């Protein structure tokens, strides 16, 4: 299989260099923006996508007017400039309002932008993928050791170092650059120097967005602009920035080079697991150097976790609980089959979101990859049905166990980290699992997923399955609630509030957090298993970023500082989705805008606001 003739290796290395170049240009913008604003901008991938779409639309029009290389490259630069301006708009409208917000809110808000852009791009550019024109003068290939190699790729190889050089000049030789570097090292210092911070941040966003747009625009002769490119590039750009050290431009360059070559040669050794290889690299680097190759610990400011606080127990809570149980039990008498289905799903998502609350609201551990455990539970159950011919009764606990084991493994890596690095690492873990589910076709069915995951016949009807789900969810939620109120939950909160204090009173913070991951993972796994049997199938999207974001959105909507928040959030979000999604193709736009609105004007969430009013009155 491995044919090691030198010309092949040379061409492969060149391919690696060209993808490294493209990756660096984009990731460089991300890392500069992070350095100055401390925001991990999820929408960076969207800016890249807009760059590609703009160029793929604009450049052909320009070429019709006057065909030639100058027109082509002018079109590329113009597209990047347009994206730069869009970046400025995003900064003014959104980012400058959340610089001081907790990381979780920043991540969610910028992810809201991702959702909005996805729908807007379809509206503006149409649903079809657009392949841009070839660069004039670069259509013919060049011969390298007897093999043809696209000459455009050579231009791309040169583009990376050129951008690195220009950025270096900008950062070293201009006042703007000096300020950017100063802010990257110590934001407060720049603030105290009396610098016009607003201008600095806006300028930085312009630079970052311009680079993202340039990265996207340069792709058009080789990759068609498509609606999936935002998430695929952002995942890779995250890896590059994290591996290089967040905020470090040379780090990003080095990381991009490593990843480009890893992909080019990884495809020879592991032809079907290129995604996994990239994320494994990140996991290994973070395990050895928790702040990346050139990153420094102090770059990440103290994590300002928000979460659950102590409250007086609700009076009459036993009666409330009994009323809820009665309502859940009587629901099938009222509802039709479809409504029962919706209710079943709401219960499942409520459990999923609640399991995340243990990590985020209680532990202050911003897990951005909770889909990993949901998906493990779903796949664990589905694989048990498919390969081991198990019944639902055996498969559900198996899924739960697999999720708990996965959480133990992932948790062991991430409890050493905090803040944004923890978020990135959990995201990476979920992406690795996504890649495994997607690419390990023989076992997981890849894109096909696994079908035929139906409940045992006694639970097959809508009513029994609903009752089963309700019972399991109720038990799991009550157990989790008990854990939150128990010393263990308090210890997690203690570590969240003050790690130094927690250690000084002898709490084994990492050990507690690790256990929290396992408990939370098991609960999410149960939710995933229930979900698999409710749908009859599993597919890799269960492990995808959007599943993680769903859970986070439910948490945010319900209120991150409340125990009941995620349950209410899950119910409201899922009900609205079920209501609105069939009516409009712009569901993601609505969802994205709602997320942004919640972060900006409603950060307490539904339950949090009610609780706040009640306490204000008292």
């Amino acid at each position, binding site marked *: 299989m491995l044919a090691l003739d030198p010309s092949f290796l040379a061409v492969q290395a060149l391919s690696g260099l060209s993808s490294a170049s493209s990756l660096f240009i984009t990731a460089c913008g991300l890392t500069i923006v992070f350095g100055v604003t401390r925001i991990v901008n999820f929408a960076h991938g969207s800016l890249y996508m807009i760059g590609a779409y703009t160029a793929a639309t604009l450049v052909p029009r320009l070429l019709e007017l006057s065909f030639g290389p100058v027109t082509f490259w002018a079109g590329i630069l113009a597209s990047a400039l347009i994206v730069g301006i869009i970046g400025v708009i995003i900064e003014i409208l959104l980012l400058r309002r959340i610089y001081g917000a907790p990381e979780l809110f920043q991540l969610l808000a910028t992810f809201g932008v991702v959702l909005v852009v996805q729908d807007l791009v379809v509206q503006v550019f149409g649903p079809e993928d657009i392949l841009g024109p070839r660069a004039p003068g670069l259509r013919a290939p060049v011969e390298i050791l007897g093999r043809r190699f696209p000459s455009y790729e050579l231009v791309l190889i040169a583009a990376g170092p050129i951008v690195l050089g220009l950025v270096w000049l900008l950062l070293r030789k201009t006042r703007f650059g000096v300020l950017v570097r100063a802010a990257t090292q110590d934001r407060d210092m720049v603030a105290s120097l009396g610098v016009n911070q607003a201008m600095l941040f806006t300028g930085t966003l312009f630079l970052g967005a311009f680079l993202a747009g340039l990265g996207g625009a340069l792709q058009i002769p080789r990759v068609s602009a498509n609606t999936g490119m935002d998430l695929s590039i952002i995942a890779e750009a995250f890896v590059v920035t994290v591996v290089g050290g967040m905020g470090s431009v040379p780090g990003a360059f080095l990381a991009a080079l490593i990843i480009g070559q890893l992909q080019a040669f990884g495809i020879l050794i592991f032809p*079907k697991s290129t995604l996994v290889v990239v994320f494994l690299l990140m996991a290994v680097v973070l395990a050895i150097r928790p702040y990346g190759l050139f990153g420094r610990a102090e770059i990440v400011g103290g994590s300002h976790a928000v979460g659950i606080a102590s409250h007086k127990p609700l009076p009459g809570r036993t009666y409330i609980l009994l009323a809820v149980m009665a309502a859940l039990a009587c629901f099938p008498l009222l509802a039709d089959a479809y409504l029962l289905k919706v209710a079943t799903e709401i219960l499942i998502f409520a459990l999923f979101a609640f399991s995340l609350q243990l990590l985020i609201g209680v532990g202050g551990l911003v897990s951005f990859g909770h889909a990993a455990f949901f998906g493990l539970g779903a796949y664990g159950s589905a694989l048990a049905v498919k390969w081991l011919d198990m019944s639902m009764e055996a498969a559900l606990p198996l899924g739960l166990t697999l999720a708990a084991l996965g959480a133990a493994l992932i948790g062991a890596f991430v409890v050493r980290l905090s803040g944004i690095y923890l978020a990135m690492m959990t995201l990476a873990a979920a992406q690795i699992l996504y890649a495994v589910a997607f690419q390990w076709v023989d076992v997981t069915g890849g894109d*096909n997923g696994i*079908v035929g995951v139906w409940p045992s016949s006694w639970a097959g009807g809508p009513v029994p399955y609903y009752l089963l789900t309700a019972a399991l969810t109720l038990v799991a939620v009550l157990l989790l609630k008990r854990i939150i109120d128990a010393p263990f939950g308090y210890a997690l909160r203690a570590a969240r509030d003050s790690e130094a204090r927690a250690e000084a009173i002898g709490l084994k913070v990492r050990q507690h957090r690790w256990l929290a991951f396992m408990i939370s993972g098991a609960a999410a796994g149960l939710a995933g298993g229930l979900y698999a049997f409710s749908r009859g199938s599993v597919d890799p999207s269960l492990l995808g970023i959007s599943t993680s974001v769903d859970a986070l959105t439910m948490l945010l909507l319900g209120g991150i500082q409340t125990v009941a928040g995620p349950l209410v959030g899950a119910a409201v979000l899922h009900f609205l989705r079920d209501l609105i999604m069939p009516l409009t193709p712009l569901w993601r736009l609505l969802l994205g805008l709602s997320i942004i609105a919640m972060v900006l004007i409603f950060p307490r969430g539904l339950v949090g606001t009610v609780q706040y009013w009640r306490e204000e009155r008292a």
Partner: protein
Amino acid sequence: MAKFSTIRSLALGAALALGAPAVHAQQPPIKIGELNSYARQAAFTVPYRNGWQLALDEINAKGGVLGRKIEIISREDGATTGDATRVADELVTREGAVLLFGSFLSNVGVAMADFANQKKIVYIAAEPLTDAITMAQGNRYTFRIRPNNTMQVGMLVDQAKASGARRWAIVAPNYEYGQSAAQAFKRLIQERVPGAQIVTEQYPALGKIEAGATVSALEQAKPDGIFNVLFGPDLTQFVREGNTRGLFEGATVLSLLTGEPEWLLPLKDEVPEGWTVTGYPWDEIKEPKHKAFVDAYRAKYNDTPRLGSLLGYMVVYMIRDAIDRAGSTETEAIIKALEDAKFDTVIGPVTMRGIDNQSTMGAWVGKLVLTGAAGGMTDWTYKDGTSFMPTEAEVKAVRKD
């Protein structure tokens, strides 16, 4: 069933009121559920929707079927198995659809077949081509109209015999459709072309091809024949990269579906001439009935038809015929009316074979040619599906029902 429907319609409020017909027909319409990947696979599915809409309008203008109008409730299937079965559930339990049709991706089609079997409702697969839907995963509730992978690959392999190519490379998207087509190809090429061997297989992820790496991996194996199953953006990038690196020079290329306008048009002037493909040379088909369809389509949409348009049009007419013959919308009656039934379609007679619920619809096979700035098909013939279908023994060996 409808206990909560008042609350729901209150909640839906204006949105539904706008869509509701002002005057109700005497009898409520027959509701048919449709689902497809309108967001992710718009190149095929949007013309397909135009096609079924055209047929629906024509049928309802003539009074519908069984004295009732037909209403098609269409949904986005999200291009994933989970979303599709969920939407299907909604169509059946909430909307009361009597029958389902649609879906594009083969993996979604397989999940839908499984769903149909579980919920005992008729599902007519529109585009999914994997053999599994009518073979290993087939069931009495699931029907397919388009020629499946084995049939289309069979048509192509026959063309390859003369080329003398022996060293074959396969490139296919890594999901159900691509895997099924590759499997069919491996089986058929070895059966029908003595001495043929597969020298390399490349399975890029659907929609995520690394064209440069894929082409150089194929090049590395020095094939004299290439079997391609890529379509959509993957195909466009693959062709551009392959042209640049000279991959196709001197090689026989067999390519599934590439002659269909939805995949041919985006290639523009980079159409790889000489590829043997299945496709749809719509402007050269002269039969009057087909011509009438093309004219009506162009008049209504001011666009040329794609294969999806034809398919959407045919499916709805066949559903009309089936309900008409069944005399009812009961699942069992519709199944009876579909099995072994003959349909008179715009492309001629088509039979729905009873043992595997696979229709005898064929495909057009020819070579790609560049005329002006766009591609087309030349030397094409219409191959009826009947002679390419899996044998009864083959069907019985794998089907579980």
